[in-house]
């Protein structure tokens, strides 16, 4: 499996936002990962941890108040270095996205079909009749009758709109699909169908050509259901990353452990994970481990030394001092 080169590789990605008053918010801090074709990775974390920002940076869709550094390789070629100029040729044709709340991803005054066909025309994939037939094919692929292309978004149900958004993301046959909370606000049945669809898309084409999917969500069961790998983000960093079952059965960061054992708050807002405390503010320097104030197993070095990345098990990395035997021995 590891002989294939990665389709997408993100290397030391950082994103800052300018704040009014001249200060900065370091929203994404040194994110690094790589994925091969057909792999599905879940990017998990609380609201505000930088997961959405990470994929927006990969798409080059950050607002003007943002600045980035790092590299985003697609098939071994860095597309981030020139900003908008170098990303835009690849956007949607090689790497595309299903936006959060796809309810609003469609312009209400244009037909769904026209909006799916739009990128095909722009990227020279198809025009006119061939675009129309491809739109119908895509809709069929996601389980919508092809003749629905001439309908307006408001005539679709929430689940259908979400599928249509996936069809739109697939319009130019991308290699990588970024999905931001694709199932939030949908009922359980529809949610299951959409997830099945995503898995199917990356599997049907076989390992070599399969779609690479990055699923951004706060919903752990969804990740467990869909993904073969997971990356847990906290305060702008990936704190743990590895195979799905490795992380689930043998978490190497207290945050992941608490995430997996926490029950979702059924009564509260959709994104509340019931771990006491709040994430740190990212517009100030963080000393030591960012998770320390909420951590149940923090010890002395956590308040002074920022944990680096370590790989306690092959293919399973984490940023936690607990994985450093020299430190834990010293403390005990």
């Amino acid at each position, binding site marked *: 499996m590891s002989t294939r080169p990665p389709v997408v590789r993100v290397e030391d990605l950082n994103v800052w*936002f300018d704040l009014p008053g001249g200060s900065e918010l370091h929203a994404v801090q040194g994110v690094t990962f790589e994925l091969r074709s057909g792999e599905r990775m879940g990017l998990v974390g609380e609201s*505000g941890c930088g997961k*959405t920002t990470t994929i927006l940076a990969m798409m080059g869709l950050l607002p003007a108040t943002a600045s980035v550094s790092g590299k985003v390789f697609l098939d071994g070629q860095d597309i981030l270095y020139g900003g*908008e100029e170098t990303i835009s040729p690849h956007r949607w044709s090689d790497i595309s996205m299903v*936006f959060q709340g796809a309810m609003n991803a469609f312009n209400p005054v244009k037909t769904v079909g026209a909006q799916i066909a739009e990128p095909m025309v722009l990227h020279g994939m198809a025009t006119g009749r061939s675009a129309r037939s491809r739109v119908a094919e895509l809709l069929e692929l996601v389980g919508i009758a092809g003749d629905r292309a001439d309908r307006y978004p408001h005539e679709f149900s929430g689940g259908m709109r979400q599928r249509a958004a996936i069809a739109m993301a697939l319009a130019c046959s991308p290699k990588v699909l970024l999905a931001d909370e694709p199932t939030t606000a949908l009922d359980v049945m529809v949610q299951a169908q959409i997830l099945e669809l995503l898995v199917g898309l990356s599997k049907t084409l076989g390992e070599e050509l399969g779609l690479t999917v990055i699923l951004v969500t706060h919903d752990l069961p969804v990740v467990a259901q869909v993904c073969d790998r997971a990356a847990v983000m906290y305060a702008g960093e990936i704190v743990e990353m590895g195979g799905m079952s490795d992380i689930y059965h043998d978490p190497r960061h207290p945050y992941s452990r608490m995430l997996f054992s926490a029950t979702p708050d059924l009564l509260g807002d959709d994104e509340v994970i019931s771990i006491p405390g709040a994430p740190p503010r990212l517009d100030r320097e963080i000393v030591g481990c960012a998770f320390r104030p909420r951590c149940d197993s923090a010890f002395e070095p956590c308040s002074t030394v920022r944990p680096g990345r370590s790989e306690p098990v092959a293919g399973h990395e984490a940023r936690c001092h607990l994985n450093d035997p020299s430190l834990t021995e010293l403390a005990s």
Partner: protein
Amino acid sequence: MSLIEPVQAADEDGLAQGILKTSRPGFLRTTLLGNRPAMIGLFILTFFVLVAIFAPWLEPYDPTEKVGPVYAPPSSEFWLGTDDGGGDMLSLLIAGSRVSLGVGFVAALVAILIGGTVGVLSGYFGGKTDTVLMRFTDYMLVIPDIPLMIIVAALFGRSLTNIVLIIGVIYWTSTARLIRAQVKSVRERVYVKRAQALGAGNRRLIFKHVLPQVAPLLIANTVLMIALAIFAETFITFLGLGDPSTISWGRLIENAFEGEATINNAWWAIVPPGVCVTIVILACTMIGQSVEDGLNPRLRVGHLSVKRFRVRPGAGSEAAK
């Protein structure tokens, strides 16, 4: 507006959350303080309000008296010259600020009281109350306001009280619609429902929970309404329907026209009153608009910009460690 999540997460003032957090005591203050146009507007408006309050002490001459020659140009004696009756323009302007601002404030208050009441009742109770009140509002919205104002002013006679009432009674409709929509959405919030479930009465719910939420919008609307009312006063007065015994900026513009200031080359009689009206309306609009914009979460995100995000070469690798 979830797409630019980190900024919002860090937005401690809660502005990005829009109306949701407007009940926080600091909302209005932070909106106004953080906003340069609003601050400038507030400064200007305060200045004119102070002038209006202290008018009798500020006027260099008695504005009702003939104190100089007709249409005397500005001089050290008459800083802004004199009008067609030999009155001192500066004194007239200062005296006019009282009536103009007074009419503006009181008429706006009348409009907001009517519109706010209709809006709150309609949005809060919904159902039949809502249908009846909003139907009525819809019809009123279609009646052209300025002609109606003329007719009513022409029929009821020329007094300041009438003008205030006319403006107030005609301009409440847009407020009613705006407030109704807001109240409706506040009404659906979890904590209002919870308070109701706990047995809070209508009066308590409206005053304790609903009104504080719509207050910033109501205040923004009042300020915008002041501008409209001042505008309407100049209009009514210009058509000769104003109170003949009072001096207002509208009256000064009318005087310049009736007294043929253009032919007499007396720019000093034409320019200042209009500039005052324009500046005050501009100030009100800047304040009101800033608060309204602060309340509109959709305006806080722009997905289209000529500017792009920047790429920092090589930075960040140390920061990540």
